[in-house]
């Protein structure tokens, strides 16, 4: 059991402390409850562009000084953006706790005075290069984007990926950035998690001193996140510069944490992950029609996704691969999974969780997620309980109910010159 001390400041900032002296380190982690789902069409990519901006300095922290302050004392840092949240984190030698808190508080409460057009222009170019490097210049790079476009209607906030589009990135203005910051970057929209080698009284004193004076915000914009049903499979065949055809499947699930999502998570372990898993064994080892397969769920708050992909071997058609995938899914829907398969999936969940708890930074991120998505950092203590309680019948039912054509999106990447 982790020892967690949770409380809130009067301005709404939620704080979670986990004292752990096994290493002379502290992990400082901030989850802001804002992500790409808080953008609107025409302004996609903002949450992520904004994340970049937040490293460019604040009122008391000069340009590029944020990275320098942390790196020059032996700290590691980064931030990431996803649909539902943006996180910022650093791991520092523990005697630099105050530095980490000062930096995070300064950019939470004092960012706007340091915002300049020049910084925006540079980070915009950097983000465009990120898009090119990770999406546009690599084979299959746009697969996830294409699946999202098909899976969600254009007025639903998961319709676009966090990287955004080149056009929208080009359109971002300083006023847009200011508005985004004022709306979402505030203590009452954030969770601060601190893990490691600190004294609680001193940590609380510093947190109160640095974050306490930052005012809460006003009301939040309302978001309707009720997803309309697909109303039948959506599919496409996309000719692109790839060498081997690949089948992508996307299935809608309830949101993360829901019992059926958990069953979906366990099901994805049964389907892929080692040579004994269903898809790998059937498609890669036995039939040898696929060279690789993967199935996984994503940690999404508003609504859930189960992703599946299989790359065809040379000379194998994408239809053959699709049929083979569907045959395996149908088998599970009809005959279920074995007790042994489910036990192994549960064990894998336990091992993965243990690995996440092992390092302070990943542990802090787990806690931030529990606090942000579920309103309860203590959920980290009981997260595995519903996994342990899952039954073969539940997995079979989820396969039969969700992994079906009416609930799926299919994108077939095929070579251009085929």
């Amino acid at each position, binding site marked *: 059991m982790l020892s967690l001390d949770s409380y809130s400041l009067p301005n709404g900032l939620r704080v979670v402390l986990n004292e752990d002296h096994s290493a002379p380190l502290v992990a400082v982690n901030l989850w802001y409850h804002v992500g790409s789902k808080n953008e609107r069409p025409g302004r996609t990519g903002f949450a992520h562009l904004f994340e970049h901006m937040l490293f460019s300095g604040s009122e008391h922290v000069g340009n590029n000084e944020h990275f320098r302050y942390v790196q020059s004392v032996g700290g590691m840092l980064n931030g990431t953006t996803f649909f539902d949240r943006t996180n910022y984190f650093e791991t520092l030698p523990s005697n630099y706790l105050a530095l980490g808190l000062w930096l995070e508080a300064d950019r939470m409460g004092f960012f706007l005075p340091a915002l300049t057009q020049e910084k925006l222009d540079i980070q915009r170019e950097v983000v465009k290069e990120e898009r090119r490097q990770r999406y546009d*210049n690599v084979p299959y790079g746009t697969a996830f984007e294409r699946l999202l476009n098909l899976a969600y209607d254009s007025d639903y906030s998961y319709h676009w990926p966090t990287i955004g589009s080149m056009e929208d990135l080009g359109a971002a203005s300083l006023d847009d950035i200011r508005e985004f910051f004022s709306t979402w970057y505030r203590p009452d929209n954030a969770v601060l998690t601190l893990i490691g080698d600190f004294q609680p009284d001193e940590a609380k004193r510093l947190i109160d001193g640095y974050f306490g004076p930052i005012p809460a915000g006003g009301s939040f914009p309302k978001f309707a996140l009720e997803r309309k049903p697909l109303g039948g499979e959506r599919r496409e065949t996309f000719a692109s510069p790839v060498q081997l055809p690949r089948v992508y499947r996307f299935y809608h699930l309830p949101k993360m944490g829901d019992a059926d999502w958990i069953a979906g998570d366990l099901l994805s372990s049964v389907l892929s992950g080692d040579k004994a898993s269903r898809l790998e064994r059937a498609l890669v080892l036995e039939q040898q029609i696929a060279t690789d397969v993967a199935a996984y769920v994503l940690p999404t708050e508003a609504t859930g996704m189960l992703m599946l992909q299989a790359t065809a071997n040379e000379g194998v058609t994408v239809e053959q691969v699709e049929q083979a995938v569907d045959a395996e899914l149908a088998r599970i829907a009809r005959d279920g999974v074995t007790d042994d398969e489910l036990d192994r999936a549960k*064990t894998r969940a336990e091992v993965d969780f243990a690995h996440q708890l092992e390092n302070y930074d990943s542990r802090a991120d787990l806690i931030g997620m529990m606090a942000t998505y579920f309103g309860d950092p203590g959920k980290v203590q009981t997260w595995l309980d519903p996994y342990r309680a899952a039954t073969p019948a539940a997995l079979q039912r989820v396969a039969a109910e969700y992994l079906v054509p009416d609930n799926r999106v299919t994108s077939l990447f095929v070579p251009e010159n085929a």
Partner: protein
Amino acid sequence: MTIDRSIDRSRAPQPGPPRPYRFPNVERRTLDNGLQLLVAENHNAPLVAVRTLVRSGADHDVAELAGLASLAGELLDEGAGDRDAIRLAEDLGRLGASLGSGADWDASYVSIDSLSRNFDEAFAIFADVNRRPAFPQSSLDRVRGERLMELIQQRDEPASIAAKRFSHLIYGKGTYGNTVIGNPESIARITLDDVRRYYAAHYVPNNSAIVIAGDVHASHAFDAVSRLFADWQRADVPPRPEITPASFESSRIYLIDRPTAVQSEIRVGHLGIARSTADYFAISVMNALLGGVFNSRINLNLRERHGYTYGARSLFAFRRQAGPFVVSAPVRNEVTRESVSEVLGELRRIRSGDVEERELSDTKNYLMGVFPATVQSSSDIAGRLLDMELYDLPHDYFDRYRENIDAVSKEDVERVARKYVDPDRAVIVIVGNAKQIREPLGALGMPIHELDAEGQLIA
């Protein structure tokens, strides 16, 4: 809560006194058959990391059979002892253990990560995989096919193309030049006999070490290893083939066309130096300052000042023999020429003796301070122990790491920059949209050789 108004946010707060850190204690034994054992206890999590280091890798591949070491390594989990591949996966899955195996340039590895409560059973399977791999023909055929598919995919991956062509230009067809996984012709030639012979020749105790880090008692771990590995027979190992690097009298550009490219993948570099160099610490500091960290000269230049790239880095690959020195930068097509120019400019500048006190101390403080955060997990600790064994590092290496970095002076950095960074005899590989970038690159005044993706000269 009373807000502490004594906190002054107008400047960075002062740190407290540094907290002590020691790398975990490492217990060592050597078995009679020459097998080295290292155990580091770490009871912070219910996990154990077990690694075999075999001190032979793809460096032993001959050109005709490039990819053999890696293929042999990968086949270890295709069946061992009484278990076929499926049964291995099932039994390991029940134990909460995951198995990996493979090779890189200097070494081959077998790894198991397990829940510590199942250490004994997981370790018994691990021993089977190490000692009694089945090497089924059907697995070789299938994995060979997977390798061929991987190579086919790499034809579209600009970073893969750049890396391959760069290595080949520096090292030719010999060691370090082939690519670890080989090429379609060499992979097609590899037989089961080749695999068995490689395994028999190299996976021997006097050429190996077993490293265990995690939630297990050292004495228990040593017992398990002794029981299951003491009868492993030693054998003489073939000598490590030497690299045959090319040298270049002047810098030149090799351009590989990728018509769909929206970015150019740029590699600038040359032969580097082996891990055993006496200048290791000075070069580490110099490289970090030059392009090894986010706040380095090359990254701040290309990313934060110019916005040309999402990230540019420099690297010395310290291997058993001299790996390459290479600067990597993926940049949008329109700024390819400018980016090459900026990179060469930074390589010249670091040799000019302009290292500033602040950037030097920032860099050294980073290297000294970051180490504990990189060895929190048992898996990370095991990785460091593998390095110690592979590179014959002294036993007090991690205890003395900070002071060795601290001792590096401005003069040291400038000396090793002049000695080991050579912008005027560099190979510059660019994978990009030739139609768009060929002419601007011409303005750099260097010869441009165009290659196809297989490295054949076009023009």
